[in-house]
Structures are given as structure tokens and as C-alpha cells.
């Protein structure tokens, strides 16, 4: 680290610069809807017999609310985004519909499906 690497902030700017703005920012989170739902390839990869994510799907079927949640995200095309936050933004209505919380019994299975879709069904599902 050499002297002068950083810009030397003038004393006046540092000390008397503009007041810190603490005004909250509101960002409209669009609930992304893929519109056409989930592609057939993606559905097959997740739910097809012997397919990579079938076991995770079977676990979901056995848990209360999980089948409804999964159907909801399929219809909204929420397996398309790559990142979790984007998937959450898409699936928020589904989350609200079953009152999904971190203690919901279906959550582990839902997370397992999410992981599997991003890892083993990446090529078939992720389009963004």
C-alpha cells in the first residue's frame, strides 16, 4: 500500500460536506411472472420419473401446502431466474398464499427443490 494510493479527501469536504441523507428509498419489487409458466423441459427435469429432482419433488408431495406452493411457482415460471432473490420476488404471491415462514414444515423440501433446479436442472430451467 503506497502513500497517495487513495485520493486525498479535502478536509472541508470530509468535515463540512453535505449532510448524510437518511431519506428511505422505496423500490417497487416487480413480481416477475414469466407469463408462459415453466417450460416442459424444466417440468420434466424436476418432476419426471427418474429425473434429477424427482426425489426432492416426492418429498414435497408428502408435506402439507408444498404441492400447492409448487404448482403456484410452476404457473408463475419462478424457476427461470438464476438468483434466489429474483426467484423470491417471482414467488412472493405463492409464499403469501401458504403463509410460508422459516419454521414451516414444507420449507426444507421447497429449498431442496430450489437447489436441485439450480444445480441439476440448470440447463433446462434457468433462462435469465
Amino acid at each position, binding site marked *: *500500500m503506497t502513500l497517495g494510493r487513495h485520493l486525498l479527501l479535502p478536509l472541508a469536504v470530509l*468535515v463540512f460536506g453535505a449532510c*448524510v441523507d437518511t431519506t428511505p*428509498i422505496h423500490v417497487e419489487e416487480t413480481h416477475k411472472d414469466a407469463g408462459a409458466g415453466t417450460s416442459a423441459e424444466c417440468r420434466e427435469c424436476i418432476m419426471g420419473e427418474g429425473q434429477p429432482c424427482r426425489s426432492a419433488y416426492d418429498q414435497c408431495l408428502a408435506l402439507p401446502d408444498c404441492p400447492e406452493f409448487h404448482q403456484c411457482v410452476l404457473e408463475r415460471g419462478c424457476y427461470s431466474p438464476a*438468483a434466489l432473490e429474483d426467484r423470491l420476488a417471482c414467488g412472493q404471491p405463492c409464499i403469501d398464499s401458504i403463509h410460508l415462514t*422459516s*419454521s414451516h414444515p414444507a420449507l426444507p423440501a421447497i429449498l431442496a427443490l430450489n437447489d436441485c433446479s*439450480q444445480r441439476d436442472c440448470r440447463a433446462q430451467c434457468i433462462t435469465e
Partner: protein
Amino acid sequence: MKARWSSGLLLASLGLSAPALADDTESLESALSQSVVTTASTQAESASSAPATSSTITAEQLRIYGIRSIDEAIQFLALGVIVSDPLRTPDLGARGVLLPGDDGKHFLLLVDGHSVNDPLYGAARFDQGAGIPIDVIDRIEVIVGPGSVLYGSNAMLGVINVITKLEKDYRGGHVFGEYEWDRSARAGAGAGFHFDLFGERAEITAAVEYFRRFGPDLSFDKQAPVFSGVNGVTPTYRRGGPADGIWGGKVSDAYFAEAPMGSLRLRVADFDISVLASAYRRGIPYTYGLVDVDFDDDQSYELDRALRFDIEHYAAASAFLQLTSRIYADGFDYQRRVNRDALQGCFRSGFSTCQYYTAGRARWAGIEERISLNWLKDSSLVTLVGLDARMRWVSAKEDALNFDTGEPFTSSTGVVDARAGLLSPYLQQTYKPNLWLDLNFGARLDVEERISPIVSPRGALAIRPFELTTLKGVYSQAFRAPTWNETDVGTIRQARAGSLEPEVVRSLEGSIEQRVATQRLMFGVFRTWWENLVEPRTLTGAERGELQSRGELPINAVNVVQYRNVATLNNYGYNASWDGTLARGRLSYGLNATAAFARRESGQGSQLLPAAPNFFGNAHVAYVAGGYAPIPALAVSYMNDRLIDRPYVSGFRSTPTAPPIAELRATLSGRFPGLTGIGYRLSGTYATESHGAYTAGNIPEIISPTTLPTLAPVDQYSVFLGLRYDFATGDGFSEPGGAP
């Protein structure tokens, strides 16, 4: 009553002869060696009479021991207080109690009696962030133990009052510069002069200082990839670096700081007006706690700014009644920018780096009136009645931004916008009927809408059975009101706490001080009880779920903390100190030690305090020959082995500790012969250990239980050289001992 035993009689009765006096001025030197303090009771009194345990660090000590900041002064020269450096703002503890990441919340920092802890975070900085040019510091009074009786919130571990120089002690012009090899540079200037203003004598002392740190490079042990990362993508920890999942390596850009600061003090007639302005920008050298930052990122930083005004007026209405009035106003703001890989840190795709931007602002202003009733007119029986009325405004938020575009990708969280008043009447009664008895009783009531009214009492008794022997006993209480940051901030990582009870500490201490010629020995014991300690506690899954079902936390919130009143502390131990001079005052030295048993009691049972040493102390020695002879000085600080700062992780086979550490500072200072006014100081520091007690990098919980956590390094070696030029300082007086 005049009859008291003399110390000579005591010594004779103990079979000890009076000390062999090589110089018959030792009695006089002994009287001149005692410290006068003002912080403990707001009145000037000898330290042995003051209703608290205190130590005073002088301007000369700051100079000859190579001290450059308040935390260094405390570490090497103060009694009972310990400093621990996590490479961010230092943590301060006292008497075995140290709370990592505390931001100085449990010490009250005063500058000329003006409180600087802000109401939003409760923070006080003790390194260059304190914002006080060190050249203009006259002394630092360190009071150990609860001090809320006169000062209110935050004074739980102690009160540190930085008192600036008067014109008579800073007359003329002063310029200095210091360079620390490969590490930092500091430069400053100051002046002190007096003049007539509208027929009244006036004086000004002013100083500016600029500090910049640019090194050293730091090495963090590399941590092997420990988890698969988000979306199964191997994490990357350096912006633009490889996605190899390895955290650690060399930090060469992220350990930096800049701190411009200035102070101005104007005294005219009975007015004392002061202005302080400062800024403190520093890097975030490693991931810690809730702060997950890209490795060695020079674009992640924290920034404090402060502007403080204080006007005080003193009036003696009569020998019976004196009035002190004070108007003050402070502005403080804080910004933090933490950059992190977007996928790993913010679970977002579409851009590479996200930034969490925290902004907080606090303003407060108030009036304090103090009436002193001198009942017998000889200052032996004095009642002090005061009232502090203050208004505070705070606001804060946290934004999540796309680092490349600066655009937010989600709404602000952690929004705070509040104000509250504070009304604090207080009373102190002192009674000093003779030379052997000092009594001091007082209490303060703090009333604000966020907490129940709280009383902080104190009672102190000092008895001198012999002329040079003082027995002292003190009971005191203090509190800390929860900050808005603890109660009102809600983000993806922190749930709003709502209301919290204030922390309270009660303390009982006793001490004996014995002066023998120019030597002073002190031994004291203490016992403290802490209640309602506010700490961030990680929520259980069920607790998280409850908040999520109420919409107070998003579904994807994991590892969420919430501030709660969770713990009590039990603490007891002793302080011991010895200081003195020999060789007609040329050789001065001091040694002190503190041993404490401190335990935290909570739902997890009784635990040692993380990062808190239970044995620590310091020692110093210097020789001032006089004239142009260089002044050699050596200072040492020590703390014993202690737990690391996050030790209680299930699965560790043994609780990890940091080894004992000693730090030595050797300094040579003086003035160049034949070059009027030009002085120098050369100082080197060495630490015996290469790592401290602070964990860095991935949190231990996700590392294999058999792997010891990475500890933040300690800068083991450093050397600096400083030069200064003082001019127009003459007042006609020669210094004692003939020093230039």
C-alpha cells in the same frame, strides 16, 4: 480538628525508619507530585480526595512516551483500563469487563467536560476517531467505575475526560509532522495567544491535525473452502478475484484511515467557548460478525463526521452562590459502505457486486445549569444542584445498492426517524470539614420517554488517618440507555427489538493510598454487578418464523440477531499501582496491575467474557536529565491469555484462546541543541504476539469444529520519527530544572 498522626510516627511504629532523604525537598516534591482532578466531582481536588479511582495522563507523558492517540495513552499509562485493537475502532474495557465490538458504548468520553457519545449508536472513538488534535491535549483524566451520577448514560465502565490546553500552556505557534515507516503519517499545527477583546482579556488555543494510515500490509491465514456457496456456485471473496472459495491472504488496500480534525477554544471574561470538528474514514480490513465484506476491498469503508459546540459561562453571584451555565450542540453522522459479491452477499444475479450502505445521523442540543451553594463560604460544605435538558434527533437507514451503477435494487431497511427529549436533574453534596475527612454524596435522575426514569446514586468517603495515607470507599451506580440502533433498526440481519431496559451497573470499591516522599502506592478492591446487559442474540428458527409470519422479517432472512436484555455480569478484583520519582524528579516511573474475576450469566450459564483479559497492566519509566539531553522513555502494556471474541461454538473440542501479549514502546525525544524551538521524537513499538483475540473471515459456526478460527493479526513492529517546531512561546519563565 487538627490533631492527626504524622506518617513519620506511623513508620516508626512499624519499625521502619523515615526514608533516607538524599534531598531535603522531598516533602515539597511529594506535595507537588500529587494530581489534581476535576472530572470525578466537577471540582478541582487532589486525586486522593476524589470520589473515584482515577489516573491522570499528562501532556508531557504523551510527548515523551511516543503517544499519538487517546487509546495509546490509556493502554500504556492509565490504571484499570485495557485497550484491545481489532484493527477497527479499539475496544475499551475496565476491571476485567470488555465487550467486543462495543464501539466505546460503556465509556463516557468527555472533551473539556462535553459529552461526545452519540444517541444513535452510543459510540465514542478513542483512536484518531476521537477527533481531538493530540498536540492540544493538556491531560486525560481516566475515572474507573460508574460515573452516571453527574454525567448520565454510558458512564458504566468509566469516564474519560480529555482536557485541552489553556493559552499559557500552548503559547506561540507549533508545527509538527510524524512519519511511521510504511504505515502512517501525521501533521499538524496549532497556536495559542491572548489579546484584548472589548476591554476584556481573551485567549485562543487552536489546533488542526491530519492523520493518514496506509499500512502495513496484513496477512490473514487462508481458510479452505468450507461450503458450497449460493446456488452451488463456489464463492469468490475478492472482487474480480477467482471463485475458489478461499478466504484470506494479504490485505494491502483495505487497512487504511484518514482523520482530519480541528479544535478551537476561546476564553473571554467568564465565557469558555469551544468548537471541535472532525472526520474519520477507515477501511474494513476483514469480515467480522454481521459485516461480510469482500476481501481487501479499498472501496468498503466507514466514515464518521462530527461538529461540536459548547459555550460555558461562570458567575460568582456571591461567596455563597455560584452559577455555571452551558449551552451545547453536536452533530454526528456515520456512513458505512460494505461491498460484497452480489450472489453470495445479496443473493442477486444480474450484476457482480452489491453494496450495503448504512447511513445514520444524530443531532443533539441542550442547556445545563449548575448552582453551587457554598454554605460556609470556605468551600468545606458545598451543595451542587444541576439540571441538564437535552433534545435529540436521530435518523438512519440501510440501502442495498448495485455497486456498479449505485442504484438500489430493494427498498431501504433499518429506517429510523425519531426524536426524544432528556431531562436530568442532579445533586451532589460535599463536606470537607478538616484535613482528614472528605464526604461526597450525590444522585442523578434521568428522565426520557424511551425508558423508565432511572436514578444513579453515589456515596464516597475518604479518610486520612495519617498525613500521607488515604482510605477511600465508594458506592456508585451507572446506566446505559439502549440506543436507537439497538431498539429501532430492523434489517434482513437484525430484527427490531422495540423496547429494552437500560443496562445498570452497581459498584462497591475500597482503596488505600500511601505516599512516601515522592512515591505513591495504591491498592484497591472492587465488586460490580451488571444487570440487563444488552446484546445481539441470534434468533431461533421458531422466533424467526414468528416474525416472518407477522411480516417483520423477509422469508429469506437467516442468521438474524435481535438486541435483548440477556445477561448479567458479576465482577470482582483488585487494582494496584506504584508511581514515583527519584533523582530529584529526573527519573519518573509507574507500574499498575488489575486482576479481575468476571463472569457473564445468561441462558447459557456462567461464562468467561470473550476477549476480556482478567489480568492486565502497564509500566513506564523515563529519565529527564534537563537541558538538551535526549529523554529516553519506555512503556509496556500487558494482558494475559483470554478467550477469542466468538468462542462459544458448539463442537469445538476446547474453547479457543488468544495467548498473553505484551507491547513495548521505546521513545527518545528532546530538542536539538543550537536549533531554537526544534524538537524530535523517535519511537519504536514491538508486540510479543502476531495475532490478537479477534476472529476474522467465515464465522466459526460453519467451519469444521476441529478447525481453529482465523485470528486477526497484530502489527508487531513499527517505528516513527517526528519533528516539531515551536516558536514565539516565551513568557519570561524558565522551566523547572532548566529544561529548554
